[in-house]
């Protein structure tokens, strides 16, 4: 074992000698510095190894051969080993990354860098407060110097502000240290702990001074303008070091100081942390400059880590797990992002579109951003999960709310940035150059993120149950992404089919319905993918990622697995949606609503786990602590996915702008995940439990209003896919309404709708999507008359809309019939009438859809379009067969459904007599009705065939036109603003109140951020004032007058 003192010795030895050795050239000195850091890394690694895999006990290193407190001693314990390893490795990677920029500044800069890393190590290890001060100063001075790696006035200004700020902070620290010596007679941390310094006279204020200085080093909001300037102004490679190494070391110092500061400080540290986390993330949404934005994010993350430290007594033995989970994600991802920003060299967020020219960098960027937000499989996901669980269980729900709010704010700007990178125009941007030594570190941290994700998931008993097989399949697809589409599609389909085959026996019937919709539906939608040409890069991994998530939530046995699947699905669907042409803003709002929903679910799971031994999914059946709120949170979370009114504004754009075969995936399939969640929640609430009737009643109204709003908005759309998207909102409203009734009939209706909606919405989206691929536009008024060119597509849409509208004899009527029986049974008459009315409105948009696309006048440029691709027709007609079977023999599906529902809602409200369904209120014989209508239709058709056997086929302008003739198809096709009259009558109902509401909120947040960030005036003196002000306010709050 090499004693850690060699970290210091090597660094200083090399550093001091470079003044002579620099004659040998800058490359040599640079290499020497890297070698020194490598050796330092090795030292901390071997300690880390010994602690993790061996029986190593914490070891003190005494300098000068005297026992502390008489000399300065260093401690190498497990945490020190980890932290120094982190600092040294990031120092090594950063050194590689900055090799050239350091070299350019000469050997002096290289030395300063080396000494910075060394100083950070000592800060972590030292047990002497004055020594801590000395090395903090070393690191401050080194940072102030290295800021200058970036040339120009901006970095000089930033550096000077940094020097001023740190000099104030260190003055306060020094006053605190000297007084601490004065009152205790020692400078050793361990002595402070054993003497419990805060009990001395004046101990409180001394601790305050030390504490506040250390906290200020962590750049708490709002006294952090200088820190932001440093992040923005310095070399991005160096920003990564500040964020990864310096902040990490400072956090550890805080941890060290907290040992003697007394427990009352924990609360204040958390408070400052949360204010920092929320505040800086809120201000982050206003940023247009990447590095400054990343700075805000870094500061925010450190705030979150402070919260965790503050809660360490409550979190107990989970603290290291949570702390390091979030720290490592932040440390790696933020370093990666800063380095990327150095490679890409784009200042404004929109300029990041250039990264798309090298797609692999986009992947790296996505990895880092998802790791920062806390998506699986990254460590932060597990850490955040545990954090929320533990905080909720200890009753700190307000804290959880604040943390989740801050996280959403962070997601806002990170995903907006990511969206720009993916979608913004990049033709005019100059491609960026790649230097190999800059890529390697980025690579390494990305791989490390995935590695740590797996490692962290295996650390606890609960998270190790997560099924990584689907995710491994995603990785596989990613690996073969260079292959042509045919191969990848086949692999994807076979993989899904095989997976379905293997897990099929494990599922109960209730889950099986959804699994069939997810997987079989997914396979059908994937078949349509054969129609695409080329490689379609990146499509298959993300599609399978979504399906992996979907199957994850079905299989989930614990709430963690469920949430894991939920987040995977969100990520996958986000990427799918964002692939569309104009889908960037919609992708963003989808992500934000999804995250909001996911956090609501997370909080609810936390509440549910209070007082329970396990985190098995069954705990939501028996929530003990504020159950109504928990269920409300769960429902709100799931309703974001079902796009119920109020939470629906993301859907039309997201579904409407997605690719042709993606729309059915996200509409027909993905939305059912929300339904699955709502169903689980309602089962959890239980049918007989009257205490939740208000919740169910509200949910019922939400469903009804959603149905109305969705359908009404669909009527006034000009874009075919948006029309279908709004229609999906409406249909999901029906489902939610049905489930909310919490009766046998209601659930049967709801489930019948689930299946139906899957069938016909998949048909409609696939067909319209295929048509859009052929005609190259979404706008219905630009189509028309396509029945002549695409009869098969027409038939598909015809069947789809008949089924959707609920007109007998097709299957849609099943759901309607069940609904009205359920409505009468439950007594929700007004809601029922609204549902019926929205059903009536559905006819309007359905007719419009089929009329303006397929009927009317064929346009000039569509005269030669071909029938939609066979690869679309195969799944479409498979689904049509499904609809026909369901229509002809509804009992085949409804009877098993009734059996599935019976355990939860056990009343025999529906009796089957052969093919006739008999309820208390009426009866309906699906097969017979179909037969009667069929026979009548054929009879009438026969008569007509005889009487018009000699009909002349005419062309599209052969119409009576008041003695004139049509001149152009465009002027003859009635398609634009068809329902103008209805609009004049009903416009008050189409005012986008919800959108206005969310816009107002967004604007309010933006205005708040815009106003608040003006405190960062850029004036170094103002920053000093902030710091002093912060000190004083904290002083008055904590110590008091």
């Amino acid at each position, binding site marked *: 074992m090499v004693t850690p003192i060699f970290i210091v010795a090597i660094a200083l030895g090399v550093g001091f000698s470079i003044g002579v050795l620099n004659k040998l050239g800058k490359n040599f000195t640079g290499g020497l510095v890297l070698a020194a850091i490598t050796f330092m890394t090795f030292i901390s690694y071997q300690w880390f190894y010994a602690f993790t895999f061996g029986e190593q006990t914490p070891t003190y290193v005494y300098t000068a051969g005297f026992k502390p407190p008489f000399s300065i001693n260093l401690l190498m314990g497990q945490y020190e080993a980890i932290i120094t390893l982190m600092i040294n490795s990031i120092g090594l990677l950063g050194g590689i990354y900055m090799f050239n920029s350091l070299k350019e500044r000469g050997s002096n800069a290289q030395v300063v860098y080396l000494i910075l890393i060394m100083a950070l190590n000592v800060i972590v290890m030292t047990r002497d407060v*004055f020594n801590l001060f*000395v090395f903090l*100063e070393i690191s401050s*001075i080194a940072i*102030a*110097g290295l800021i200058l790696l970036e040339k120009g*006035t*901006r970095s*000089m*200004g*930033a*550096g*000077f*502000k940094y*020097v*001023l700020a740190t*000099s*104030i902070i*260190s*003055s306060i620290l*020094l*006053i605190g240290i*000297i*007084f601490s*010596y*004065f009152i205790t007679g020692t*400078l050793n941390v361990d002595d402070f702990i054993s003497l419990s310094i805060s009990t001395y006279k004046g101990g409180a204020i001394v601790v305050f001074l030390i504490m506040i200085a250390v906290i200020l080093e962590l750049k708490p909001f709002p006294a952090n*303008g200088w820190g*932001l*300037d440093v992040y*923005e*102004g310095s070399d991005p490679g160096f920003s990564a070091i500040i964020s990864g190494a310096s902040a990490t070391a400072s956090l550890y110092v805080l941890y060290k100081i907290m040992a003697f500061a007394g427990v009352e400080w924990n609360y204040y540290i958390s408070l400052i942390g949360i204010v920092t986390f929320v505040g800086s993330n809120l201000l982050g949404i*206003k940023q247009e400059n990447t590095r*400054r934005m990343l700075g805000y994010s870094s500061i925010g993350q450190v705030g979150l880590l402070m919260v965790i430290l503050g809660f360490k007594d409550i979190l107990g033995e989970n603290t290291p797990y949570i702390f390091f989970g979030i720290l490592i994600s932040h440390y790696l991802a933020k370093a990666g992002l800063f380095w990327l920003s150095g490679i890409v060299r784009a200042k404004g967020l929109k300029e990041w579109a250039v990264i798309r020219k090298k797609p692999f960098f986009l992947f790296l960027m996505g990895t880092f951003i998802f790791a920062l937000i806390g998506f699986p499989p990254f460590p932060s996901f597990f850490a955040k999960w545990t954090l929320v669980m533990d905080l909720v269980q200890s009753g700190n729900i307000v804290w959880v709310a604040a943390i989740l709010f801050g996280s959403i704010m962070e997601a806002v700007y990170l995903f907006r940035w990511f969206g720009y990178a993916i979608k913004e125009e990049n033709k005019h941007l100059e491609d960026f150059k790649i230097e190999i030594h800059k890529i390697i570190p980025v690579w390494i941290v990305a791989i490390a993120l995935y590695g740590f994700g797996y490692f962290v998931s295996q650390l606890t008993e609960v998270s190790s149950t997560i099924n990584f097989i689907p995710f491994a399949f995603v990785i596989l697809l990613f690996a073969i992404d260079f292959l042509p589409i045919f191969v990848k599609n086949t692999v994807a389909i076979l993989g899904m089919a095989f997976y379905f085959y293997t897990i099929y026996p494990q599922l109960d019937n209730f889950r099986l319905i959804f699994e069939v919709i997810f997987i079989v539906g997914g396979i059908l939608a994937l078949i349509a993918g054969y129609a695409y040409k080329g490689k379609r890069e990146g499509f298959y991994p993300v599609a399978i990622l979504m399906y992996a998530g979907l199957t994850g939530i079905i299989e989930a046995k614990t709430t963690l697995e469920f949430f894991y699947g939920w987040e995977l699905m969100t990520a996958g669907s986000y990427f799918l949606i964002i692939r569309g042409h104009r889908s960037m803003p919609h992708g963003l709002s989808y992500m934000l609503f999804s995250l909001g929903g996911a956090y609501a679910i997370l909080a609810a799971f936390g509440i549910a786990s209070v007082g329970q031994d396990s985190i098995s999914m069954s705990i939501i059946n028996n929530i003990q602590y504020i159950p109504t709120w928990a269920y409300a949170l769960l429902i709100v979370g799931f309703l974001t996915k079902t796009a119920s009114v109020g939470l629906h504004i993301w859907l039309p754009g997201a579904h409407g702008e997605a690719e042709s075969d993606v729309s059915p995936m996200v509409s027909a399939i993905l939305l059912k995940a929300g339904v699955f969640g709502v169903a689980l929640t309602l089962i959890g609430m239980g049918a007989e439990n009257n205490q939740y009737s208000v919740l169910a009643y509200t949910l019922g109204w939400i469903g009804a209003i959603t149905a109305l709003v969705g359908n009404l908005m669909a009527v006034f759309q000009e874009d075919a896919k948006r029309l279908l998207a709004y229609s999906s909102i409406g249909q999901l409203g029906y489902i939610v309404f049905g489930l909310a009734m919490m009766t046998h009939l209601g659930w049967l209706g709801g489930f019948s709708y689930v299946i139906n909606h899957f069938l016909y919405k998949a048909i409609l989206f696939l067909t319209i999507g295929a048509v859009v691929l052929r005609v190259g536009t979404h706008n219905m008024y630009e189509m028309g008359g396509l029945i002549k060119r695409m009869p098969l597509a027409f038939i598909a849409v015809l069947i789809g809309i008949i089924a959707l509208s609920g007109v007998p004899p097709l299957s849609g009527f099943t759901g309607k019939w069940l609904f009205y029986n359920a409505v009468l049974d439950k007594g929700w008459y007004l809601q029922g009438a609204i549902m019926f009315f929205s059903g009536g409105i559905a006819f309007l948009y359905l007719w419009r859809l089929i009329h303006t696309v397929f009927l009317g006048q064929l346009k000039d440029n569509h005269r030669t379009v071909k029938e939609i691709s066979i690869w679309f027709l195969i799944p479409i007609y498979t689904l049509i067969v499904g609809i026909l079977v369901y229509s002809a023999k509804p009992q085949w599906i409804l009877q098993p459904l009734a059996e599935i529902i019976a355990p939860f809602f056990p009343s025999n409200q529906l009796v089957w007599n052969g093919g006739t369904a008999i309820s208390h209120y009426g009866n309906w014989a699906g097969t017979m009705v179909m037969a009667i209508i069929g026979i009548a239709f054929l009879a009438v058709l026969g008569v007509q065939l005889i009487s018009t056997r000699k009909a002349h086929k005419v062309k599209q302008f052969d119409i009576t036109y008041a003695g004139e003739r049509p001149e152009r198809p465009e002027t003859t096709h009635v398609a634009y603003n068809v329902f103008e009259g209805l609009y004049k009558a009903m416009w008050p109902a189409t005012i986008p109140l919800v959108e206005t509401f969310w816009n107002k909120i967004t604007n309010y947040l933006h205005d708040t951020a815009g106003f608040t*960030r*003006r405190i*960062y*005036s*850029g*004036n*170094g*003196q103002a920053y*000093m*004032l902030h710091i*002093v002000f912060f000190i004083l306010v904290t002083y008055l709050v904590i110590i008091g007058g």
Partner: protein
Amino acid sequence: MEQLDLGHISLAIGFLLILIGFWGLLTQKNIIKIIVAFTILDTGINILIVSLGYIVGKTAPIVDNSVEQLENHNVVNSIVDPVPQALVLTAIVIGFGVTALMLAYAMKLFNAKKTLEINKFNDLKW
């Protein structure tokens, strides 16, 4: 403040200097004046450190004749606290380093914008 001894006085002076330093840091627009304010602040802190080591009527912590001339030849009872004196040495050097760095910055900043007004260097903000 029942007994106004040397320790108290120097301590008060130290704090006074610190306050003056803070006042200068927060009010002076000229970077050089800010640096001067910082050195005043620094000096104040150094005075604090030294005065905290002061023990009434004791001599410097060097074991030589002056100590041996004291009554009971006991080093412990005859010297002031040596630790703050060691610390102040470090503090002074650190203060020197920071001041030097600040001055270098001041030179470069003046070169860049030909001004020493601190509020002119607000390229980075918000």
